[in-house]
């Protein structure tokens, strides 16, 4: 049982319990939870992902607007397949939705992923995996707006930090999404939460064995691969506790990470 309470670091205010989280999520499989992977597409023919991807769409520019068509283009870069593989390994019954915005022709980089995010929010997928980011300042305001919309729609957006000297959006936004940086930890449930830091969550992201287009596997390192670990954990939580709001989920992650920290020490 995890007690999800008010954040203790705020002075000596009375600690308030928000809710109690039964441990049954640890044995969940992500059943009935929908997860969007906004990325380079997913190789749906990979044995690790057989039957896991329920639909795939691809961004296309039509008369200066972005539209999404059903896609059988798979994954030309490998990144989306890797992220999907990680989510699926942690939460094997999760329904994956591939939104291909990278490698799709004719789109500016930032515009493509903004459109993908807006599409995912419109579909009201439970969790959105965003292992992408931009440092272009012109996307700051529109991304903020989209993430507020996601929050209001109850979609939980998880974004990878870029781990570069410049801040990247949206991972530096703290209020309405969950941002993740890689750690050398290997157990997906033993993640960390660093309240007060710009990127709050740490999850496995070093030398992660992942499926790769064409049927093989790769060992990958990057914040991009820490992000789907947290997405997988959220899928487990949501299966057992489907009424959790984005705020609840963040609080729950914090409480679980605190338990992890106590156990590790």
């Amino acid at each position, binding site marked *: 049982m995890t007690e999800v309470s008010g954040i203790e670091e705020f002075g000596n205010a009375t600690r308030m319990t928000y809710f109690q989280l039964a441990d049954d999520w640890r044995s969940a499989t992500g059943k009935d939870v929908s997860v969007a992977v906004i*990325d*380079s597409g997913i*190789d749906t023919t990979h044995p690790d992902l057989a039957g896991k991807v329920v639909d795939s769409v691809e961004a296309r520019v*039509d*008369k200066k*607007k*972005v*539209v*999404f068509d059903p896609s059988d283009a798979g994954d*030309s*870069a*490998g*990144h989306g397949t890797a992220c999907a593989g990680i989510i699926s390994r942690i939460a094997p019954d999760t329904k994956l939705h591939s939104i291909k915005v*990278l*490698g*799709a*022709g*004719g789109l500016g*980089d930032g*515009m*493509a992923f*903004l*459109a993908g995010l*807006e*599409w995912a929010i*419109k579909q009201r997928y439970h969790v959105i995996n965003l*292992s*992408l*980011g*931009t*440092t*272009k*300042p012109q996307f700051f*305001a*529109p991304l903020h*707006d989209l993430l507020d919309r996601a929050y209001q729609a109850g979609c939980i957006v998880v974004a*990878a930090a*870029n*781990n*570069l*000297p*410049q801040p*990247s959006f949206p991972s530096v936004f703290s209020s309405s999404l969950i941002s993740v940086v*890689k750690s050398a930890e290997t157990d997906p449930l033993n993640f960390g939460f660093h309240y007060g830091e710009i990127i709050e969550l740490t999850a496995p*992201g*070093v*030398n992660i064995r992942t499926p*790769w*287009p*064409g*049927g*093989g*596997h*790769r*060992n*990958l*390192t*990057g*914040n*991009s691969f820490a992000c789907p670990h947290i997405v997988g954990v959220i899928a487990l939580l949501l299966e057992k506790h489907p009424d959790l709001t984005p705020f609840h989920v963040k609080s729950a992650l914090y409480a679980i990470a605190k338990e992890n920290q106590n156990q590790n020490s």
Partner: protein
Amino acid sequence: MSDSYESDLPAKLQRLIETIDIANVLTDPLTRSIEDLLRATAADIKSEEASVLIRDGDEGDLRFLSAIGKVAERLIDMRVPAGKGIAGFVLSSGQPMAVSNVEQDDAFYAEVDKATGYSTETILATPLRYEGEVIGVLEYINRSGDPPYEAFTPDEMDRAARFADAIASLVHAYESAKLFRDMSQMIIGGESEFDVSEVRDWLAGFRGGAEHKEMMDLAVIVREIAGRGEAERRMCREVLDAMLKYTDDKTETSFLSY
């Protein structure tokens, strides 16, 4: 004599300019500096093969600009299509990544290895950014010594990201110099496909356009205000910034068509 000297002068100047290798003067010091940086940074992260790929065209294709290592010469100017392979992904996503256990027998974009005969086993790729834009990709491939090679570490990824900033500035300078070089070559070299009169016509048409006249009028007004003093300049800037923000807010509503 003076008449003859003056009439010869343009021709002499042209010949003089033609003897200067503009390509070398403008871009070579920069490509050499990029190579030097590649060599120094590769040594720092225990690799001997490194390359810089730059964005080529508007579709997200990449082209090898610079490389060090065994197959460096074969890599230069080789292209990677948009979104292909690890470099293509790093360019379009802006996310650095390290990949090990890169086998040759599946869908990894292996065209570069096939063309060079080199075997990529472990790779670290990080975006090159200049003023928020991803302008290319910096890659380090394999390790010093013999295989099997250890995967690149998170600490090395962080270091590579910092190297990428320095290299990106040089790449940007190279691109600017190349633009100037190409234009100079076209004009001085008198290449047949380049007709100066066409440029003049285009410029005349541009200047004659109603929109251009309006923009010039606006520029004249701004210049006049700016000339009145510091306070006026600040006020003008604030008003224009507010207007820009207002028009941005009006247009940024949806990114989709429905």
